[in-house]
């Protein structure tokens, strides 16, 4: 492996990823409803500031401002033809920020979901999904991203399509899913299911894991679920800084920097190697997380009780894995078609 992330992973036993993109751009004046990716072109200074904030706070990896930079998402803003260009610029700005440092900083090209449901349930075919992801991947590659970073995925089919697209682009990648529905993804995938999905791919990611979701506690339960599968692939934990609250026309997340510091250390103890935040995570949170990871000793793998004690309750009693999995409770009558 010659890519920068693999090299860095060989020298370190934990890496700090970045925090929120949307939350931080809002704080810089992004209007509700506008596409953040437009700022790559219109306000590159602000995107430079976004990345710099994370790197200054100690992040080893930061994600580019290209989460919604695929054609399916940009279509809403009439910018579907700019997917490759806007993605490229997001990575170019990132490259500049990263190359100014005397330590290795990884530019991770963010790729978010298409926002569409895949066939046969929805209209998006596998071929088209691959094409959409491939176009964005090429843009991020041109811009100089070290690695592609798929995030907030719910459907296994979409994860597979992205893996295929990233192979076409010849880029190493990482990929996380959002476990926001009773401990599973919206499409019903459990943490154990995701490990099977990842290990079964022809082009598996360098690291995999969970991002966004509900709160920090839920995210760590998911990480424990990954770790229980016992594979060696690095696990990524990027949880939200608490729960969103509405205040004076703005969204604030209720997770304090201190809570996120505890979360970061618990994530490492749970088995995660790459640790960061998601929505609501500001530079202040990242600084505390960096400090905690640098100064606090590693501990035993926490129990579910220890997680809730430190970070608050889970959003659901079970997450569909292990002994908790009761399966469908309903008595079935005779099925006529198998």
């Amino acid at each position, binding site marked *: 492996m010659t890519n920068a992330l693999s090299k860095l992973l060989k020298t370190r036993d934990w890496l700090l990823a970045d925090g929120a993109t949307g939350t931080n751009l809002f704080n810089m004046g992004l209007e509700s409803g*506008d596409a953040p990716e437009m700022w790559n072109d219109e306000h590159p200074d602000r995107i430079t500031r976004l990345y710099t904030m994370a790197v200054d706070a100690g992040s080893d990896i930061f994600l580019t401002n290209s989460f919604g930079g695929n054609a399916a998402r940009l279509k809403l803003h009439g910018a579907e033809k700019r997917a490759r260009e806007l993605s490229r610029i997001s990575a170019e700005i990132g490259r500049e920020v990263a190359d100014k440092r005397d330590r290795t900083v990884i530019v991770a090209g963010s790729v978010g979901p298409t926002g569409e449901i895949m066939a046969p*349930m929805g209209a998006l075919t596998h071929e088209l999904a691959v094409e959409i992801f491939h176009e964005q991947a090429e843009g991020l590659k041109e811009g100089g991203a070290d690695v592609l970073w798929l995030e907030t995925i719910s459907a296994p089919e979409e994860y597979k399509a992205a893996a295929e697209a990233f192979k076409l682009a010849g880029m190493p990648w990482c990929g996380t899913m959002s476990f926001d529905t009773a401990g599973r993804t919206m499409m019903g995938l459990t943490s154990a299911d995701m490990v099977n999905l990842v290990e079964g791919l022809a082009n598996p990611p360098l690291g995999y894991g969970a991002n966004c979701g509900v709160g920090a506690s839920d995210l760590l339960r998911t990480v424990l679920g990954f770790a229980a599968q016992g594979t060696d692939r690095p696990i990524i934990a990027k949880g939200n800084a608490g729960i*969103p609250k509405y205040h004076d026309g703005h969204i604030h997340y209720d997770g304090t920097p201190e809570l996120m510091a505890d979360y970061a250390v618990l994530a490492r103890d749970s088995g995660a190697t790459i640790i960061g935040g998601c929505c609501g995570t500001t530079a202040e949170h990242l600084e505390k997380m960096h400090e905690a990871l640098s100064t606090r000793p590693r501990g035993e793998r926490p129990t579910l009780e220890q997680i809730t004690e430190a970070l608050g309750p889970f959003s659901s009693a079970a997450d569909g894995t292990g002994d908790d999995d009761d399966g469908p409770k309903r008595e079935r009558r005779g099925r006529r*078609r198998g």
Partner: protein
Amino acid sequence: MSEDQDEIILADLSDEELVEQMWDDLYDGLKEEIEEGVNILLERGWAPYRVLTEALVGGMTIVGKDFRDGILFVPEVLLAANAMKGGMFILKPLLAETGAPRMGSMVIGTVKGDIHDIGKNLVSMMMEGAGFEVVDLGINNPVENYLAALDEHKPDILGMSALLTTTMPYMKVVIDTLVEQGKRDDYIVLVGGAPLNEEFGKAIGADAYCRDAAVAVETAKEYVKRKHNQAATA
């Protein structure tokens, strides 16, 4: 189980058995079987409204409960809703002809800037599954779209959905506009979407936040009932 054992002839079932079988078929998302079941019940002289409420809405209520309880997930619900749609397609013109009672109506759409319509579509389908009339405005709606649709359709409920923290504040823009124009109390306003919560719903002045599509249906029924009661006592 072998094919032979599994084979059930719908037309041979009693009314009661057939309805229960249709609940299972809805649960399994079997569209053709649902269409067949609807036609059989109609042939047996069932009123379209009874077919809707007992067979279809009854079945979707089970799907909704299991979705709410984390037993079923989006793919299964989409299949069930698709089967329901097959049955509704047959019943809709008949319901209109027979002047069947209405559960209520809803105008729904994702707010400006938000193209994530999976949740909104689920709510639409589950509301239709519960017998509501739904006017779906699709994605990315500025306040003008909501206002025009409210004026045109005079629904009981306005539903707004947002999946992004970047778009959820726009719900307040819509509600504030309704307040300014003195129309806020004409509608039940329900909001939903992954990053929202009850506190947010209250803060922006919605009637209720609905955690998922199943809860949206339950909440809608409760509020419409309350609204009708109020109208009756007013």
